[in-house]
């Protein structure tokens, strides 16, 4: 009686926890599982495929653990074979089945590593928008070299258009991540990396740094907005007319550490700003 009571309580608890989890997931935004980008959709598919493949082994393990623990517990009087220590067929099974699963996963890994390589440009017939992202202490600077504008902690781009992010840092290493669109690549001083993303629809997404970079790290959050093409053009015009200029002098002030930086917009930028930021770190580049 007592045991039955225990089992009922535990089952009810598990059901309650399950229900709460389902409720929580359905009422909250789970960016990685609710992707809005070309890359992040593929990344979610990969999460699902690989999980299912691995469950082929994981579920039997968990079931066996319970069943063996139950069936062969002391005092139940199941068959006892104290010297049974080897069986070729069984052992071939549990070397073999995982080997097959890992081979399948390996093929998937090889293909997707190339397909989802952040450096690989996206081609869909539209001209990509180029954005240079610079991680600073502790904010993100976005430079639009073709439009001649720049922003801080805010980035806007058209939907259904490949975005070529070229990334560096003028600060300790950070990691550039917009979970709902796909991720993630390090932002390192004196290096450039890139990531190519595409938003499938319009929307506002949160981006952040995923690598500890010092005191203000937690505030290195930016808003990423995918708008339709016309809105994007209007926005660029608006930024251009706002008048502030990001000269090298202003930039050297911007580089100074600051936390929870507000959004800033610059209608005009110093020529080759991104390259100059990089060149500071080269042996001959310290002149400026």
């Amino acid at each position, binding site marked *: 009686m007592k045991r039955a009571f225990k089992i009922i309580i535990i089952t009810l608890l598990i059901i309650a926890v399950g229900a709460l989890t389902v409720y929580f997931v359905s009422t909250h935004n789970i960016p990685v599982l609710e992707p809005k980008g070309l890359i992040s959709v593929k990344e979610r598919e990969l999460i699902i495929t690989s999980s299912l493949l691995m469950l082929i082994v994981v579920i039997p393990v968990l079931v066996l653990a319970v069943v063996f623990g139950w069936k062969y517990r002391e005092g139940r009087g199941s068959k006892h074979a104290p010297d049974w220590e080897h069986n070729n067929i069984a052992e071939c099974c549990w070397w073999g089945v995982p080997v097959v699963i*890992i081979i399948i996963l390996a093929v998937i890994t090889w293909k997707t590593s190339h397909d989802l390589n952040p450096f690989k440009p996206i081609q869909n017939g539209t001209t990509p928008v180029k954005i240079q992202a610079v991680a600073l202490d502790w904010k993100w600077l976005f430079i639009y070299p073709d439009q001649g504008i720049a922003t801080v902690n805010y980035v806007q781009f058209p939907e259904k258009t490949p975005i070529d992010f070229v990334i560096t840092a003028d600060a300790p290493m950070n990691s550039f991540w917009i979970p709902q669109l796909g991720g993630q690549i*390090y932002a390192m001083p004196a290096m450039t990396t890139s990531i190519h993303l595409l938003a499938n629809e319009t929307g506002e997404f949160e981006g952040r740094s995923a690598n500890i970079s010092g005191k203000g790290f937690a505030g290195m959050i930016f808003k990423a907005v995918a708008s339709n093409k016309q809105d994007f053009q209007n926005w660029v015009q608006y930024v251009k007319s706002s008048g502030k200029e990001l000269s090298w002098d202003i930039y050297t002030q911007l580089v100074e550490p600051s936390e929870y930086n507000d959004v800033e917009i610059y209608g005009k930028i110093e020529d080759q700003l991104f390259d100059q930021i990089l060149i500071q770190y080269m042996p001959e580049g310290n002149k400026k």
Partner: protein
Amino acid sequence: MSLFGRLGEHALKHDWIEYAAGVSIVGGALVVIILITYLKKWGWLWREWFTSVDHKKIGIMYIVFSAIQLAKGLIDGLMMRAQQATASGDCMGYLGAEHFQQIFTAHGVTMIFFVGMGVVFGIINLVLPLQIGARDVAFPLLNSISFWLFAAGGLYIFISLVIGVFAGTGWTAYPPLAGLKYNPGVGVDYWLWSIQISGAGSLLSGINFLVTILKMRCPGMKLMRMPVFVWATLATVVLVIFAFPILTGTIGMLSTDRLLDTKIFTADYGGNPMMYINLIWAWGHPEVYILVLPAFGIFSEVVPVFSHKKLFGYTSMVWAIAVITFLSFIVWLHHFFTMGAGANVNAFFGIMTMVIAIPTGVKVFNWLFTMYRGKVTFTTPMLWFMGFIFIFVTGGMTGVMMAIPGIDFQVHNSLFLIAHFHSVIIGGVLFGFFSGYSYWFPKFTGFRLNEKLGKYAFWFWFVGFIVAFFPLYLLGFMGATRRMNHYPAGNGWQPLFIVASIGAFLILIGVLFQAAQLYKSIKERNQNKDTTGDPWNGRALEWSTASPPPFYNFAHLPEVHSRDAFWELKKSKKDIVKRKYEDIHMPKNSMVGVNIGILSCVMGFALVWHIFWLAAITFIGILIALIARLFVKETDYYVKAEEVEQIETRSRAT
């Protein structure tokens, strides 16, 4: 440069929470010191413990030290959870960003280096020589030096709470953040010397145990007759010997960057931070297996004993360990797929990583089939094993997911990663240690641990773990990264952080039950005495001697004719032929180890604060201590046969 380098009054300036921590540490140390003085135990401690070269006493000292560190690391974890449960939106939490960052860095360093490594070397020290039928390790004095270097390194975790600050860079301290430009203060230096000094101890231990296993096995114990725990240890120490020099070299270069401005890992002047990241993980990944392989070894001892059955697939087990050992050196890049190495490189390291899942899975199946057609008794050690299976298997599964670069891009450095590695480190390493702790406890104390409290502790740990860490998987998918002291309110993360802190609290209750268990077991030791030396009906040689074993372990060196040597001996029902006792050759105690430990600790402290004259003096002191030892002629002695006979008859009588 002043006499005391950069050490000045400002080193003692803290906020009130840090003061509270400092006061409790200094106060706690004072209480212990006064208590020992009052009980007049200093001489006893010095003679019987600090200068001891007995592997059993050194093992116990490792575990006591690690238990203190575990308590400290757990408090760190609880403080982080309390911060993250509250610091959402307008509320900034009760910790400043820099203090929070020090806490998570210290938490990582404490748990990996001084809890993980401590319990691993503690258990190896205790069990390994007994399992191979040896009287001590190959180099007993070196063993003592290793321990004291390890302890010296661990002290900085506490010292930095009182004097100065600890690093806030994360436990792997990536440059340029950990370089002079962004972190000129003493925090990173404390981190450096803490790891450098204890790392030297670990390397020496590795060499010591390798030689012990290869040269000190008793007659008849061929390699393929060794208990699987010994195999696991062999693999572990091979990893230590190959991996720790990389660590020493890497942080050695980082310390020249910091002391001499050598610019090896700076972003400018041709330095290369990416090289550091590669090197630290070339050590760091094998390190993970250094921690978990001994746990696999422990389960391979526990499961057969409590299933009353032979270990299934011994040969498979040994090969699985060998494969894991080899592969663990060619997977390090999976810690930074996001650094941009390119598709081919990423894919190679990803595939190598998932290949490790095969031998690991084989081990799990072998343990489960050891239970098949056994008679399984669910004592505390076995419960920890069952808990391990559930948590480790889920942790392994998420590990393989992260081995796929395409998935890793989305979960790297997120809380998904945190949930994964806590699953394998708590579920694997700690649960393995707890299993071994309750299994071998009677062997080294002569009495059993209280089962009831042990089971309560297990259930609180197990449920607490699930509540504390499973929400983090979801938080990772929601875009929450690790190491945030604050986050915006709009993401809806706070409920999950609150659930996670409830889990952490449940784990704390589990730890309190463990403390209560130890207290109650000691109090009631006379009711739970193990007079046989074999309380569990064990299989390996450690159970063939008395509990606790005499300081020479075995009056007669055992002779082995098969695996499960003691089991087979019991089965054959042959009475042990009474042989004449002989003189036993044993090493003498030595204060070299503890002296070198103290000198190294002072030297590291001097280097942290740039007190170079003191560093030079202590360094010369270490050299003198070592050279002086070379002139000591009487390093060993013989226990007379009559004395052995006396001790043996006494232990039989009780």
